[in-house]
């Protein structure tokens, strides 16, 4: 029924989409008001980046201390693993819709909803990363008189950087991807181009998809670079 109708909807062209990104055009729906163009694209991209950064920061603030503490003490493995597994099973669309309906729309509320997606990967990887550190290194650190906090900060965390960053990268990808449907909860991200087909047209939809994909790939590259910077030189030389 609907499915067959949908198959025959027109779709935009790559050329038209690229033009849409840079050059605003009049939309029949908004009564000839200009839509698209570089100004609006940058504005939407910045909102998406803002809500992503806020949500990742919030999930780090919650998940890192817990994961590092549990990993250092070596307790709560079942909790860390179960949370990691449960986190993967949360349907993104249901989460956004549910949070919007329960706590309301807006940047603050969307940040909270998105950070829920980021907590499991960060917590689980923090736990696993710290646990994987060679116990002999920790014993040696304790032997030279380091305090527990020093052991965590100067021995365990530097050695766990690759795993810690894997969690943060995973969280960031999940959050930036889901931030695309944030317009459903009242925050206009690049997903607005994609979800509001009748305002932006087929070229707008495709333009939104292209810019979202570029944004996510850029974030991933930036975090991969950050990981390389944070990994101590001795570890970098070791084959992965």
């Amino acid at each position: 029924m609907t499915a067959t109708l949908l198959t025959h909807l027109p779709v935009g062209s790559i050329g038209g989409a690229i033009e849409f990104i840079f050059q605003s055009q009049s939309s029949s729906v908004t009564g000839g008001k200009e839509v698209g163009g570089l100004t609006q694209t940058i504005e939407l991209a910045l909102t998406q980046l803002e809500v992503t950064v806020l949500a990742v920061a919030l999930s780090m603030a919650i998940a890192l201390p817990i994961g590092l503490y549990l990993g250092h003490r070596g307790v709560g493995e079942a909790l860390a693993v179960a949370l990691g597994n449960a986190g993967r099973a949360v349907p993104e669309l249901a989460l956004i819709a549910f949070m919007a309906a329960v706590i309301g729309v807006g940047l603050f509320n969307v940040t909270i909803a998105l950070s829920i997606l980021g907590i499991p990967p960060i917590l689980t990887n923090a736990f696993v990363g710290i646990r994987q550190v060679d116990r002999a290194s920790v014993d040696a650190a304790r032997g030279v008189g380091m305090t527990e906090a020093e052991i965590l900060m100067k021995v365990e965390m530097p050695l766990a950087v690759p795993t810690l960053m894997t969690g943060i990268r995973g969280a960031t990808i999940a959050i930036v991807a889901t931030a695309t449907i944030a317009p459903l909860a009242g925050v206009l991200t690049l997903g607005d181009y994609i979800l509001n087909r009748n305002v932006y047209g087929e070229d707008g939809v495709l333009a939104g998809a292209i810019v979202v994909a570029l944004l996510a790939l850029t974030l991933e590259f930036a975090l991969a670079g950050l990981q390389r910077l944070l990994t101590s030189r001795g570890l970098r030389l070791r084959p992965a």
Partner: protein
Amino acid sequence: MASLAALALPLAKVGEVGKDFFHERSSETLSCQANPDKLFCFEWAKDNIDRYGTPTVQHIELVAISILAGFAVAFALALLAHRHHWLRTPLLAGTGALYTVPSVAFFFLLLPLTGRGRDTAIIALSAYTLQIIYRNTMTGLANVPASVKDAGRGMGLTGRQLLWRVELPLATPEIVAGLRIATVSTVALATLAVFAGGGGLGDPIYDHITFTTNIILAGGIAMLMAIAFDLILLGIQRLATPWLRAARGQA
């Protein structure tokens, strides 16, 4: 709540999905919706649970086909890279890039090529499984002890026999671990297939996005489905690796 309803209205008009999901029987729906403070309307759920049958079946189909297709491609790529070492890094980078592209964007990037509908959703969903299945298969194969491979060669196994009779069976736990992660995430991700016109449990959610009873029901079915798929794969792994059970019994 009022602001949310106002917001959802234009979106609902844009929604490209089946509008007939919440047809008729609207008296209960309305009385339930009129009371937005009520998080979960048990009466409505009891009377309307049958509406979720078709989306659930569609969801299972989306996930099963995507996982099978993703596994076939990723497994073939892993075997290729296992034989030709120089392929490893480019294949890991390639599958990683696919994994990074947000799903909603992926659907709409595919539209000019594949059109709206289930095929597009399946292509995108299976693309997301490649990275994890590929990586776990490679790790599993790499972790096979060299001494075991030597023993196999010593017994006169050819390269192909060694792969299928020694290396792959020993790598099964890691391969299945990758499949389980991929499957659970795909069940969750498939709710977004609605944006590609692909059906599934995202259909009812998107159709009535402010009605929490509906969201909890559809989201709950998806999460239960993820658990069920996970347990099935775990069972398959147990059956496929009887020697691990024997070892555990001895220990």
